C-alpha cells in the first residue's frame, strides 16, 4: 500500500479527531485573523460535512459557564457545556442551550444606528467609522464628570477595559448592574459575610457535601448565582454518597422550582424568615445542649411560630433535624433577602451555620474563590447605588451615558424613574445587540457582537471551588454588521489621542485581553501555563479559559458570628394591599431570555406556563375573590398597577401572590415585545439594610378585571387540577 497519506485520508483523520476530542482550535494568535465563513468561501479548519468545535463562555448570565459550540461551514449549530470548565463541567441550563437563538435572533440590531428620536424605532444606519467618531466625540468633548458608563454583569473584560478607560480620562468608574444580581441580593450576601465573618466575599454554600440543606428562599436550582454548579451540588447532595441521601427543606411562601425538589416545604409568612431562623437556632442549641449563644438568645420560639404561621412542632421537628444532621447547611436567598430585614435574615442564617460549626468545612459555608485577575469579589451595584446613579442622571450633570450589557429601563423598578432621568441626559449611546427598552431610549445603538461572536473573559464569581477565568472566543464570523464594543472604544481612544491613546494602546480587543492574561501565564497552580503569551492564549482558547487546580475557597473564621444580637421583629411592608407580593425570576426565562422563542416555549417548571406572565394565587384566595384560572386581574401596589392572567396555584400561601419576572417587554424583538407584564412595575425603591432592592416587601391589592386571557400551559389542566386531576 502506498504509504503516503492522501488529502482525503488526512481529512478523515482530522474529522475523527475533531469529533472525539471535541475541541480543535486555539492554534496560536493566528486564529485571530482566521475568518470563519460560509460554504461558498471555505476558510481554513472548515471541511464539508465536518463540524468544528469552539470553546467559549456562555453569556446568558454572568455565572461564566463554559460552552463548546459546534459549528459547521461557518454556522453555529449547537451549544453544549464545556467539560473542562470547573463551573459547569459540561452541563448547561436551558438558557445556555438556546443562546444560539440570541445569536441568530431575527431582531438583532444589525448595523450601528442613529435614532430619529428616543423611543422611535425609525433610525438611520451609520457606518462604523462615523460611529467611532461619535464615541470619540462623546468621550473627548464632555468633561470627565459628565460621562457615565452603565455596564452589565458580563463580560468582565469589557468592564475591565472601561474601568481602565474611565481611569485614564478621570471619569467615574463604570457602574455595574443586572436584574439577576438585583434579585439575588448580592450586596446583602456580601454584607452578611462581612458582618458575620468580618471578611469580604461572596458566600459559597457547599450543597454537594452537605447532608441536610435548609434553604431560606434560595432558588439555587433556578437562576441564583450559578445555577448549573448548584444543581450539580444538589445532585451530589441527593445521590453523591451512595450511603445516604441528603435531606432538603425549603422555607418560602410559594413552592418554587427549587422548593418542588425539597423534601419538606415550610410556607413561612413573608418577612418572618429571620424569626424562624433564630427560633430554629435556639432550638438547635437547646437540642445540642450548647449554651445559648447571644445571637439566638432573643429568639422566642412561640412568637416566631405564630408570626411565621408555622407550628411550634414543625419548628421543633426542623430543629431536631438540623441538630442531628452530620453536615447541616442553611442557605439564605431569594425573596427572604429582598425584604426590609433581608440582611438580618442573611446574618441569622450564617449564624445558624456558625452554630452547627460548618463555617469553612465541607458541606458548609465558605467564601467563594476570588477569580483570577482580580483582588476581591466586586459586587454589582445594589439598588441604593443605582438609585443614587439615577439621581445623578436626573440632576442633569451627566451629559453622555454609555450603556452596555444591561437593560435597566426594563429591569429597574419603574418607581425609580430611570426613564425620566435618562431624558435629562444629552446623549445616550447603547451598545446593545438587541433592540431592548434601553436601546430604544438611546440616541445611538452601536451593536456589540453577540457573546458567541466575541472575544472576552468572565471572572467566575462563585459556583466552583477553584478560581476560574472563563474564556470567550468567536465561534463564527459576526453574522451582522456589528463591532466589538471593546474595539469601538479602543479605536475611539486612538482617535482622541493623548494619554488615553497611550494607556489604551491596543490594536484590538484580543490584544487587550492578552495584556490582562499575561499576568497568568506562569501562575503555578494553573490548569495550564505557558512560556509566553501567545501559547498561553492558544490554550486559553482551546480549553475555554484558565483556572486553578486547587481549592481556592476561602474558609472564613466564624468569628463572633454567634455573639451578634438580632432584633426580633418581622420585616416591614410597603403599601396597604391585602396580599404579600412575591416577584421571582422566571426560572427558565430569567431576565433576558424573552427574545428566544424556544425559551418562551419552554414550560415553566412549576406552572408549565409558556409565552406569558401569570399571577399565582392560592385556590382559597381565588375562591374568595371569585377568580378562576385565566382571569385577568389587576394588581395594584403603591408603585403601580399591572394586569396579568391568574394561575390558581395550589402551592402558595393564601396571603401571598407571586409573579414571575422576565416578561412584559415593551421592546426587545418580536418574541418578547408586548407579551405579559413586568412585576418590576409594582416595586418601590425601598431597600433592605444592605441597600439591595426589597423586592418582596410590597403589599398589593388584587382586583378582577372581568377579562379573560388564556394562559398557554404545557400541562393539561384537566388532568392536573380539578375533579379529574391525578397525582
Amino acid at each position, binding site marked *: 500500500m502506498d504509504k503516503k497519506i492522501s488529502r482525503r485520508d488526512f481529512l478523515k483523520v482530522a474529522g475523527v479527531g475533531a469529533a472525539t476530542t471535541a475541541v480543535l482550535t486555539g492554534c496560536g494568535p493566528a486564529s485571530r485573523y482566521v475568518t470563519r465563513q460560509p460554504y461558498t468561501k471555505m476558510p481554513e479548519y472548515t471541511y464539508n460535512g465536518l463540524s468544528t468545535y469552539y470553546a467559549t463562555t456562555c453569556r446568558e448570565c454572568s455565572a461564566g459557564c463554559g460552552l463548546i459550540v459546534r459549528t459547521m461551514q461557518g454556522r453555529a449549530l449547537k451549544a453544549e457545556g464545556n467539560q473542562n470548565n470547573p463551573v459547569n463541567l459540561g452541563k448547561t441550563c436551558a438558557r445556555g442551550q438556546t443562546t444560539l437563538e440570541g445569536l441568530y435572533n431575527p431582531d438583532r440590531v444589525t448595523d450601528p444606528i442613529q435614532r430619529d428620536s428616543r423611543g422611535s424605532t425609525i433610525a438611520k444606519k451609520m457606518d462604523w467609522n462615523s460611529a467611532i467618531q461619535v464615541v470619540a466625540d462623546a468621550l473627548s468633548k464632555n468633561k470627565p464628570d459628565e460621562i457615565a458608563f452603565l455596564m452589565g454583569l458580563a463580560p468582565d473584560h469589557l468592564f475591565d477595559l472601561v474601568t481602565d478607560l474611565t481611569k485614564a480620562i478621570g471619569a467615574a468608574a463604570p457602574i455595574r448592574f443586572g436584574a439577576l444580581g438585583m434579585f439575588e441580593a448580592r450586596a446583602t450576601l456580601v454584607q452578611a459575610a462581612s458582618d458575620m465573618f468580618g471578611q469580604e466575599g461572596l458566600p459559597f454554600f457547599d450543597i454537594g457535601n452537605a447532608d441536610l440543606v435548609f434553604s431560606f428562599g434560595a432558588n439555587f436550582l433556578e437562576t441564583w448565582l450559578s445555577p448549573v454548579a448548584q444543581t450539580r451540588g444538589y445532585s451530589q447532595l441527593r445521590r453523591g454518597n451512595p450511603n445516604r441521601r441528603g435531606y432538603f427543606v425549603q422555607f418560602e411562601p410559594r413552592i418554587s422550582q427549587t422548593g418542588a425538589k425539597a423534601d419538606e416545604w415550610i410556607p413561612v409568612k413573608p418577612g418572618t424568615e429571620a424569626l424562624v431562623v433564630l427560633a430554629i437556632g435556639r432550638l438547635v442549641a437547646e437540642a445540642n445542649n450548647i449554651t445559648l449563644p447571644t445571637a439566638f438568645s432573643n429568639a422566642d420560639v412561640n412568637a416566631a411560630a405564630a408570626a411565621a404561621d408555622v407550628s411550634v412542632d414543625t419548628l421543633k421537628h426542623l430543629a431536631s433535624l438540623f441538630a442531628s444532621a452530620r453536615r447541616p447547611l442553611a442557605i439564605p436567598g431569594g425573596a427572604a433577602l429582598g425584604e426590609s430585614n433581608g440582611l438580618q435574615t442573611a446574618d441569622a442564617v450564617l449564624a445558624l451555620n456558625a452554630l452547627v460549626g460548618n463555617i469553612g468545612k465541607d458541606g458548609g459555608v465558605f467564601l467563594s474563590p476570588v477569580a483570577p485577575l482580580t483582588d476581591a469579589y466586586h459586587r454589582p451595584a445594589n439598588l441604593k447605588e443605582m438609585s443614587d446613579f439615577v439621581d445623578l442622571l436626573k440632576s442633569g450633570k451627566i451629559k453622555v451615558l454609555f450603556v452596555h450589557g444591561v437593560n435597566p429601563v426594563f429591569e429597574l423598578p419603574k418607581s425609580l424613574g430611570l426613564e425620566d432621568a435618562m431624558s435629562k441626559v444629552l446623549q445616550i449611546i447603547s451598545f446593545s445587540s438587541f433592540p431592548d427598552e434601553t436601546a430604544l431610549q438611546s440616541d445611538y445603538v452601536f451593536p456589540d457582537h453577540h457573546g458567541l461572536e466575541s472575544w472576552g473573559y468572565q471572572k467566575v464569581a462563585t459556583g466552583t471551588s477553584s478560581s476560574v477565568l472563563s474564556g470567550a472566543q468567536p465561534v463564527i464570523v459576526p453574522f451582522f454588521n456589528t463591532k466589538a464594543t471593546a474595539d469601538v472604544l479602543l479605536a475611539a481612544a486612538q482617535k482622541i489621542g493623548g494619554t488615553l491613546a497611550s494607556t489604551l494602546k491596543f490594536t484590538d480587543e484580543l490584544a487587550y485581553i492578552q495584556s490582562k492574561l499575561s499576568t497568568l501565564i506562569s501562575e503555578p497552580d494553573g490548569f495550564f501555563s505557558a512560556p509566553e503569551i501567545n501559547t498561553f492564549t492558544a490554550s486559553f482558547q482551546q480549553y475555554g479559559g484558565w483556572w486553578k487546580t486547587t481549592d481556592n475557597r476561602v474558609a472564613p473564621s466564624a468569628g463572633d458570628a454567634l455573639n451578634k444580637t438580632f432584633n426580633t421583629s418581622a420585616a416591614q411592608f410597603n403599601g396597604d394591599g391585602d396580599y404579600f407580593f412575591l416577584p421571582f425570576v422566571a426560572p427558565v426565562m430569567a431576565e433576558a431570555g424573552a427574545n428566544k422563542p424556544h425559551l418562551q416555549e419552554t414550560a415553566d417548571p412549576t406552572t408549565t406556563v409558556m409565552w406569558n406572565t401569570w399571577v399565582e394565587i392560592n385556590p382559597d384566595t381565588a375562591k374568595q375573590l371569585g377568580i378562576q384560572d385565566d382571569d385577568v386581574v389587576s394588581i395594584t401596589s403603591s408603585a403601580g398597577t399591572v394586569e396579568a392572567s391568574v394561575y390558581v396555584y395550589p402551592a402558595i400561601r393564601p396571603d401571598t401572590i407571586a409573579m414571575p419576572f422576565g416578561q412584559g417587554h415593551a421592546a426587545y424583538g418580536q418574541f418578547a415585545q408586548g407579551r405579559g407584564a413586568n412585576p418590576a412595575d409594582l416595586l418601590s425603591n425601598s431597600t433592605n439594610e444592605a441597600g439591595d432592592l426589597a423586592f418582596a416587601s410590597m403589599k398589593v391589592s388584587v382586583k378582577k378585571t372581568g377579562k379573560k386571557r388564556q394562559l398557554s400551559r404545557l*400541562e393539561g389542566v384537566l388532568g392536573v387540577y380539578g375533579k379529574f386531576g391525578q397525582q
Partner: protein
Amino acid sequence: MSAIAKALPNLRPEEMEDPKEHLMHDPLPRGEMNRMVLESMHTTTWKYWTVVTILAFLVVTCLGYAWYYLIMQGLGVSGDNRPVYWGVFLVNFVYWIGISHSGTLTSAILRVLKIESRRPFTRVAELMTAFAIVNAGLSIFMHMGRVWLAYWLIPYPNERGIWPDFHSPLMWDFMAITTYLICSSLYLYLPLIPDLAMVRDRSKGWVKTFYKIFAIGFRGTEGEWKNLHLAMNIFAFAIIPVAFSVHTIVAWDFAMATRPGWSSSVLGPYFVAGALLSGVAAVPIVLFFVRSTMKNMKYFLRPEHFDTVGKMLLIISMGWAYFYFNDYIVPWYAGDKWEKILTLFIEAGPQAWLWYLMLFCNIVVPWSVLWRKKWRQTPWLMAIVGILINVGMYTERYIIVPEMSTINRMPFTWHIYIPRVEVILTIGTFALFLLLYFAASRILPLIPNWEVQEGQEGHILRKIGKAKIPTISQID
C-alpha cells in the same frame, strides 16, 4: 282458509285496514308508473334550484375552499391536538360510514328476507349509501396530515420499494372501505340498469345518449334477467357481511389502540349496531323529504314503508342500547382507574351534556315513539325521530372519538378538544351529500319500477270470509 278467518273473528270490515294502503296491492299499469317516475324526475321548481344553488355554494366554500385552506395550512387549523389526535374528521368518517349502512344493509337484509315492502325504497336508501361512502372517504382524506400522499396506502408495485403495512388496522380499513365502496356502488347500479333502460326508452337527444351509455344495452332478455337476478342475489348475501366487516373494522381502528375506552372487544358489534341505528334512521328522513317534495312519490312511498323502517329502528335501537350497556358495564364494574375517570369525564365532565343528549336521542326518543303503529305511520314524526336519532348517533361518535381520546394514561397531556375548521368542513360534507342527492333525484329514477311491478304482479287480494286479505304468490 277457515283458519285465517278465525284469526280475524272480531274485526268488522270498517275496522280492517284498507288493503289498498299497501303499494303492492294498489297496482298501477307499468306505463303509468313509468310516467309518474319520469315526471318526478323532470319536475323542478325554483325552490329546487334555490336549494341546489345554496348547496353548491356551500360545497364550493365550506368543502372546497375550506379543505384547500386546511391542506395548505396543515392540520393546525383544525382543533386536533395532543392527546386528541383524532377529531371531528374521524367523527364524520364514522358517522358517514354509519349512514352508508342505511341503504346497502337495509336493502340487502330486506331483500334477503324478502320483505316485500322494501321494494319502492331500496334505491332511496342505496343512494344514501353511495354518497355517504364518498363523504366518509373525503373525511379520511381531510384527516390525513399529508393527503397528497394518500396513494401510498394503495398496494401496487412501485419504485419506492415499499408497500403498505397490512399489520395496521387502517389498511384493513382501507381495504374494507374500498371493497364496500366498489360493491355497494355496483349493488346500487345493478338494479338500476333496467330502470335506466326504461328512461332511455323514454328520452330523446343527448339525454338519451346519456342513459343509453349507462343502460349498457340492457333489453330484458331472459338471460339478462337471470344473470342480473343471480348477481343481485350474490350481492345481497355477500354485502351484508362486508357491511358488517366495514363497520367492525372502523370500530377496530379504535379498539386496537391501547387506550382506555377504546380498547374494548365489544366495540365491533357495538359500532355495527350504531351504524345500523343511524343508517336506518336516515331512511325515514329521506323518505319523508322525497315523498313530500317530489311529484307522484306519495303513491310509491307510503306510511307502510315508514312503518317497516320504524319497526326496524325500534329493534335496532334496543340492540344498540344492549351493546352500549355491554360496553358500559364491563369497564365500569372492572373499575380500572382510567376507565373510571373516562366514565366520569363523559358523564360529569365539561361536555357531559353530550352524553345525556345521546341517551335521550338514541333511547328515549325511539322507545317512546316507535312502539305505536300510528306514530310509526306518521311520516313527519318519523322524520323527526330519524333526525333526532342521527343527532344522537353523531353525538355518540363525538363522545367516542374526541372525548374518549382526551383521557389517556398520561393525565399531564389531557387537553380539551374544540373543533375549528372541522365545523365548516362538516357543513361542507353534509352539503355535498344533499347536493349529490338532489342531483341524483333528478337524474336517476328513485323508484325501481321494475321491482315494484314485479312485486305487484306477485301480490293478490283474496276475499276470505268478509274481508279482503292481501296474499302473496310465488312468482318471483
